[in-house]
């Protein structure tokens, strides 16, 4: 089953390479931006938009429990400091990655959670894609649902965003493709039978039907890199965080849908 699929996928990539309109280098105008959910079938949209049927809500529910569960030698929970997430975490996920004073770097939401764990709770950091970290990020992202994405643009974050932008437009891997070739120059076209979206991270972490589980934006970025036959960065690498920041900035003002559902 999977193997002929792979062959078809390779052929699909070839089709885009050989037949797609050519790279223009022009970024999508702000008003022409569309969230990935607009490219989905009505059934998948319904699954995302109804809380009682969105499978990612199982992770949100778990995150809610973890929020007030003490952890580490400090025996503190998230709520010990942050109280009610509905107020304290409103809009937070919509503004990450953000600048961290201590490390003088831009960090993402997962890294922020792990800093709280190691510094405040005196607990071990949670691994990327572990159920607990996905549950916590899903719960936090949920507190920003319906809010506009707010990527800060200042002198401290700009170098990181520019590094991310460079990655976005750089050709990599055996297929010699860049993110921009698919998601800026050819969005709306088909890659195999799948529609190419514009790559706006409006709904992470999200439940991907292909994964049959919830995953982070970095998991999705790894998928893309593997598809391009490039060596993916490791989870948490600064390159990935920079790319996340650039993607959030590119999607600035768009509405947070997290936790989303995607094919």
């Amino acid at each position, binding site marked *: 089953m*999977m193997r002929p699929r792979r062959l078809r*996928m390779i052929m699909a990539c070839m089709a885009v390479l050989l037949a797609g309109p050519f790279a223009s280098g022009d970024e999508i105008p702000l008003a022409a931006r569309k969230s990935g959910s607009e490219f989905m079938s009505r*059934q998948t949209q319904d699954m995302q938009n109804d809380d009682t049927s969105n499978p990612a809500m199982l992770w949100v529910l778990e995150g809610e429990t973890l929020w007030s569960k003490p952890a580490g030698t400090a025996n503190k929970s998230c709520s010990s400091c942050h109280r009610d997430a509905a107020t304290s975490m409103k809009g937070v996920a919509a503004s990450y990655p953000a600048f961290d004073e201590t490390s003088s770097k831009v960090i993402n939401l997962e890294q922020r959670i792990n800093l709280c764990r190691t510094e405040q709770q005196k607990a071990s950091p949670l691994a990327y894609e572990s159920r607990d970290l996905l549950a916590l990020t899903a719960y936090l992202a949920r507190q920003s649902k319906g809010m506009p994405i707010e990527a800060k643009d200042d002198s401290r974050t700009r170098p990181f965003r520019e590094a991310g932008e460079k990655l976005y437009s750089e050709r990599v891997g055996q297929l010699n493709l860049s993110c921009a070739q698919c998601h800026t120059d050819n969005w709306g076209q088909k890659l195999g039978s*799948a529609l190419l979206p514009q790559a706006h991270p409006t709904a992470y972490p999200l439940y991907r*039907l292909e994964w049959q589980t919830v995953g982070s934006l970095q998991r999705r970025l790894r998928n893309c890199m593997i598809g391009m036959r490039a060596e993916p960065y490791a989870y948490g690498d600064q390159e990935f965080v920079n790319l996340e920041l650039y993607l959030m900035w590119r999607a600035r003002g768009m509405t947070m849908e997290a936790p989303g559902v995607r094919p």
Partner: protein
Amino acid sequence: MKRVAETMLEPTRRIFILRTGQLGLGLVLGAAGAQRARATPDMMRQLVDEITGGKPMTKGKVTLDLPPLVDNGNTVPMTVSVDSPMTDDNYVRVIHVVNEKNPQPDVITCTMGPRCGRASFATRIKLADSQKITAVAEMNDGSFWFDNADVIVTLAACLEDIL
């Protein structure tokens, strides 16, 4: 984004096509060797015969709602409803859903009765390939009714375990 000059791109494409061809052949041979278990349309008919005990079934009363084109075969929303008053003397006893090309022909069997009020349910199923799905309803009077749906399963373009 700057476009790479044609002269540079061409050899890359040629090499790419060649390599992909070689890789593709290997993958096809590998798949043939795996010999996965799979249901067939015959197995589905057999299962339907078992359900009905060989009794005739009539097309109608049942509505099998599946998207004709699905985003991903791993999670396909499905609703089955049957036109029935669901009263003590006229109700749906069981709804069976069967398929042609998954590893197994059975999908789900729901037992219901007058207490349900409405003869319908919704769930999400896996479809290994484009195929025909059949829903069979068994009424309290022993009659069988059915509906079919043809579904085209599209594939995600970027798979994670590709390497």
